[in-house]
């Protein structure tokens, strides 16, 4: 026990800490500038100098460790003089332009000068002049205001791990710059902005638009973008979101954000938002592809004005009453005429649990069908149920921050630093803490974190994984804890020769990789969507499960949508009821029948891909789409579009008139994430609260659906999201007895108070797909960039400025072989279509891969990609899309 006295207060400490930490623990504030609680200590600014008895000189509290019996004084005449002196020096080159600085009011320098002075400087020389840099679209840099605390550099290097900025030059000429000296070209997390104590680096999104003290409201909510579920503080003035910042201490992201969370909010106020219900006036034509493209292609966000034209050509405005009774009437008629199976619904991984619960209840109770699915089917849903069938429910519900404490992270199938950026930071932290990063494939975001990589030839991952299992099962003893899996493991075997010859992996690298893997005591395995969408995905998932079992690891499934997990837990799938209970269990069906006071369909419904087929062949007559854009977010999107045109009655409920919305008979304007209450369930299966920050035109998704259900004579009486949540927690055995209050107190962690499904695991089935041979061909693959997520991000101007247009990525060898230069416009064609776009040469790519994102209107990867269905996981398989690239305009 260490006892120190600071400002006369006796403080007892378990272990030695710095004087600053000791003081803070007792609520004593010592002024600081270079110190920041999220960063490594630096001791550069000297502002925290304090008097320590028996020490001849003042000491920096932020670096000096306490010792037993130490007596410290933090505010004396001497410390005040010293601080004033330091501040005078900091101001010699400072432009004193606080009246036009956005930081004024929350500037640490301004506050300190206010407290300690000096009121007047003695410096007579000319001040250093550095023009403000507006070369970057997002971050404005004003180096005259910089006090060289290096907080931004330490954040970027030591926490974010991007190392995009550094101190350039030295002495009085020092300044902070990104590599180019102008544009940042970095990860644009904005975490450097969070830690800058002054107005030297700031966001351009809200430049000169408010003063910090004019903020009217601060709402804590959850990010709408990915499955990490970061806490956001949304700052509001005049009912407009002015700024989004993180909060230090929040559970998932603890004071950090990624680019989407911090800069992606502007879609909320977009001029393109839908404001009234729309009813179709234009006939639904099955016209040629050309004209389809013309009606579907939308102006970019900044030309929002012309959107009005498209709307009035296709639709007329309607009142809510009219639209709701029209939808209720048409759906009832179709149900009457063609029966329940002719109706289907697509739920949304962007909507809340409450929205999704009401959606599936509506489909099941009011329309009598289990035809409910979502884009989670394209990868996440099947992968998760496969893994849970082996390890039990909740197998992937692992705490994200646990990654940084792992001694090893094994990554496959996607770059976590772009798909789930804040999770990616935990992997980088694991490496910094001395853990090993093993990757199957090249992931740029982990490049500086000493990954041990095995990069097999495209489409030969399964052999490599078999090789890993073969070695591991000889090194580790099988314990018989999971006999079903062990029986499968016993059959897995491949030779090192195959790994060498087919995957083209060096034996030495393979052995080294396996030594590290088998010696790990606390490993984690991170699986991305590319694995879930691959040929033979079920077999690869089995191999990964086997590896996980043999090394006794934890599994993480990357999720690129905010409520992908929640939507499944709410029962938005053709085969599961809320609480992730199988439709096929008589017991769970009965349970919901009695709670919902309605008979339920017993047959499992159609998957989203089966719905598309049913629409194509005419057996599906009506479809209700909530907050999803299947024409854009499903592969082979042109076929999806044609299929949806074929549907007699299509209802689309969304915040924008999406590609899918344009095909609808009725369009219903919903509220965005910032305009409603509710909950999201993140990839850890943590339930978190969304809170309304601003008002919007439109209704909550659950409210629209409830209105329609009531119009159809069903009892859907809810006055707010909490009512629905209470019903969920009464009905679902998994969410048993949970309340908003519990969640707010941190009770949203899986398995809550509920009962995860324990029994009823089925035989492990795998599909042994025929291996694709890549010889000499090029294959189209999906790039999943940090800056985009599709329908929302392309209406967020900041994200569009960072990543403005679709590009196609090829390897340097491919570029050479085809003699393409960087930036040259080329035509990319597959069996089902072709588009023209500029080339980017990417050193991280292999010579078989061509990468394209699915984020830009008219130039999306899904327009070019056909798919198969993986028979076990029922996900789309995107492997094997051969592609040709040639000069454009030929």
């Amino acid at each position, binding site marked *: 026990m260490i006892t120190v006295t600071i400002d006369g207060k006796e403080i007892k400490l378990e272990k030695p800490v710095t004087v600053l930490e000791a003081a803070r623990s007792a609520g004593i504030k010592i002024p600081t500038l270079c110190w920041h609680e999220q960063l490594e200590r630096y001791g550069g600014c000297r502002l925290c100098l304090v008097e320590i008895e028996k020490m001849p000189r003042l000491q920096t509290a932020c670096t000096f460790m306490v010792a037993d019996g130490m007596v410290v004084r933090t505010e004396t005449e001497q410390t005040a003089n010293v601080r004033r002196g330091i501040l005078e020096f900091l101001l010699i080159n400072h432009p004193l332009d606080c009246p036009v600085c956005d930081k004024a009011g929350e500037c640490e320098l301004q506050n300190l000068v206010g407290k300690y002075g000096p009121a007047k400087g003695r410096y007579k020389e000319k001040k250093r002049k550095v023009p403000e840099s507006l070369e970057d679209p997002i971050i404005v840099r004003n180096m005259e205001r910089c006090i060289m605390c290096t907080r931004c*550099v330490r954040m970027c*290097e030591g926490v974010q791990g*991007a*190392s*995009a*900025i*550094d*101190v*350039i*030059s*030295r002495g009085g000429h020092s300044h902070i*710059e*990104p*590599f*180019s000296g102008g544009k940042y070209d970095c990860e644009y997390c904005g975490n450097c902005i969070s830690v800058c104590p002054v107005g030297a680096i700031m966001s351009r999104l809200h430049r000169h638009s408010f003063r910090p003290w004019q903020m009217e409201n601060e709402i804590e909510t959850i990010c709408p973008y990915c499955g990490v579920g970061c806490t956001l503080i949304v700052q509001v003035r005049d009912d407009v979101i002015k700024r989004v910042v993180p909060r230090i201490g929040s559970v998932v992201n603890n004071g950090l954000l990624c680019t989407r969370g911090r800069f992606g909010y502007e879609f909320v106020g977009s001029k393109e938002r839908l404001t009234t219900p729309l009813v179709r006036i234009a006939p639904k034509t099955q016209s040629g592809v050309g004209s389809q493209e013309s009606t579907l292609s939308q102006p970019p966000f900044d030309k929002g004005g012309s959107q009005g034209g498209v709307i009035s050509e296709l639709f007329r405005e309607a009142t809510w009453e009219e639209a709701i009774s029209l939808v209720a009437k048409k759906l009832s008629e179709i149900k009457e005429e063609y029966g329940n199976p002719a109706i289907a619904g697509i739920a949304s991984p962007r909507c809340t649990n409450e929205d999704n619960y009401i959606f599936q209840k509506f489909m099941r109770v009011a329309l009598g069908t289990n035809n409910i699915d979502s884009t989670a089917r394209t990868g996440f849903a099947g992968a998760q149920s496969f893994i849970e069938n082996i390890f039990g429910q909740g197998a992937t519900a692992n705490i994200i921050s646990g990654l940084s404490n792992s001694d090893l992270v094994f990554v496959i199938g996607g770059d976590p630093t772009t798909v789930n950026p804040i999770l990616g930071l935990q992997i980088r932290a694991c490496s910094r803490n001395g853990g090993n990063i093993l990757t199957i494939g090249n992931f740029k975001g982990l*490049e*500086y974190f000493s990954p041990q990589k095995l990069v097999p030839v495209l489409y030969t991952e399964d052999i490599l994984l078999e090789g890993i299992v073969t070695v591991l099962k000889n090194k580790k003893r099988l314990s018989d804890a999971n006999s079903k899996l062990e029986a499968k493991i016993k059959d897995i075997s491949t030779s090192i020769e195959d790994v060498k010859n087919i995957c083209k992996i060096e034996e030495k690298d393979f052995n080294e990789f396996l030594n590290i893997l088998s010696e790990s005591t606390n490993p984690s395995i991170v699986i991305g969507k590319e694995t879930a969408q691959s040929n033979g995905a079920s077999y690869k998932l089995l191999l990964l499960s086997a590896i996980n079992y043999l090394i006794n690891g934890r599994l993480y499934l990357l999720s690129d949508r905010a409520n992908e997990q929640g939507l499944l837990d709410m029962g938005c799938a053709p085969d599961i009821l809320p609480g992730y209970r199988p439709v096929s269990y008589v017991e769970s069906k009965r349970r919901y029948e009695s709670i919902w006071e309605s008979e339920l369909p017993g047959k499992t419904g159609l998957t989203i891909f089966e719905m598309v087929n049913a629409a194509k062949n005419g057996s599906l007559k009506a479809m209700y789409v909530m907050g999803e854009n299947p024409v854009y977010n499903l592969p082979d999107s042109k076929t999806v579009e044609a299929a949806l045109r074929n549907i007699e009655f299509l209802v689309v409920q969304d915040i924008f008139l999406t590609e899918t919305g344009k095909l609808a008979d009725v369009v219903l304007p919903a509220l965005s994430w910032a305009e409603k209450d509710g909950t999201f369930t993140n990839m850890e299966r943590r339930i978190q609260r969304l809170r309304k920050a601003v008002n919007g035109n439109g209704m909550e998704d659950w409210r629209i659906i409830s209105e329609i259900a009531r119009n159809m004579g069903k009892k859907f009486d809810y006055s707010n999201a909490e009512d629905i949540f209470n019903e969920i927690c009464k009905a679902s055995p998994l969410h048993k007895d949970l309340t908003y209050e519990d969640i707010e107190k941190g009770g949203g962690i899986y398995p809550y108070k509920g009962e995860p499904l324990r029994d009823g695991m089925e035989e492990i089935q795998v599909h042994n797909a025929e291996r694709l041979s890549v010889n000499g061909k090029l294959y189209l693959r999906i790039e999943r960039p940090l800056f985009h997520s599709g329908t929302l991000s392309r209406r967020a101007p900041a994200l569009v400025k960072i990543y403005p247009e679709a590009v196609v990525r090829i390897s340097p060898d491919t570029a050479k072989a085809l003699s393409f230069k960087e930036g040259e416009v080329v035509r990319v064609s597959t069996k089902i279509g072709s588009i023209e776009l500029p080339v980017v040469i990417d050193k991280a790519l292999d010579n078989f891969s061509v990468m394209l994102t699915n984020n830009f209107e008219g130039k999306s990867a899904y327009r070019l990609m056909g798919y198969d269905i993986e028979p076990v996981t029922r996900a789309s398989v995107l492997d094997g899309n051969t592609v040709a690239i040639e000069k454009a305009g030929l």
Partner: protein
Amino acid sequence: MLSKAAIKELNEIRQKYPDASAALLPALYIAQREFGYLGADAYEAVSDALGVPRAIARGVGTFYAMYKHKPMGRHIVQLCTNVSCMILGAEKLSDFLKNKYGLETGGTTPDKRFSLVIMECIGACGTAPAMLVDDDFYENLTEKYIEEILEKYK
């Protein structure tokens, strides 16, 4: 792009240090030799070769005044004009360089043969005036002697 030989040299240097960033200074010298000075290309080449982020390579490089930060002549003349050298006529010598060779302080001759850097004391006060040409040291300078010396550097 670095030459194959330079990359080999870099890799050898890398082996002598515990981690990549520790090898930055010698690596930057190699890149400077290859590219003529430290600009974006040189930093990127070092960054790629060592696996150190490029912004960090540039941050380290720009800290040191003794790297070349802009294109320079084939040979660098570093003339001292500090107190001892100044008293013994260094300023005249600098005028001489300007008139005879067109070499301004910080400038480069039109034929890219020489660049001139003015130094603050190179530790030869006893034999001032003094200068360095590339890595070679010369003292007791006179105009005539400078002419002779520079003849050696093409």
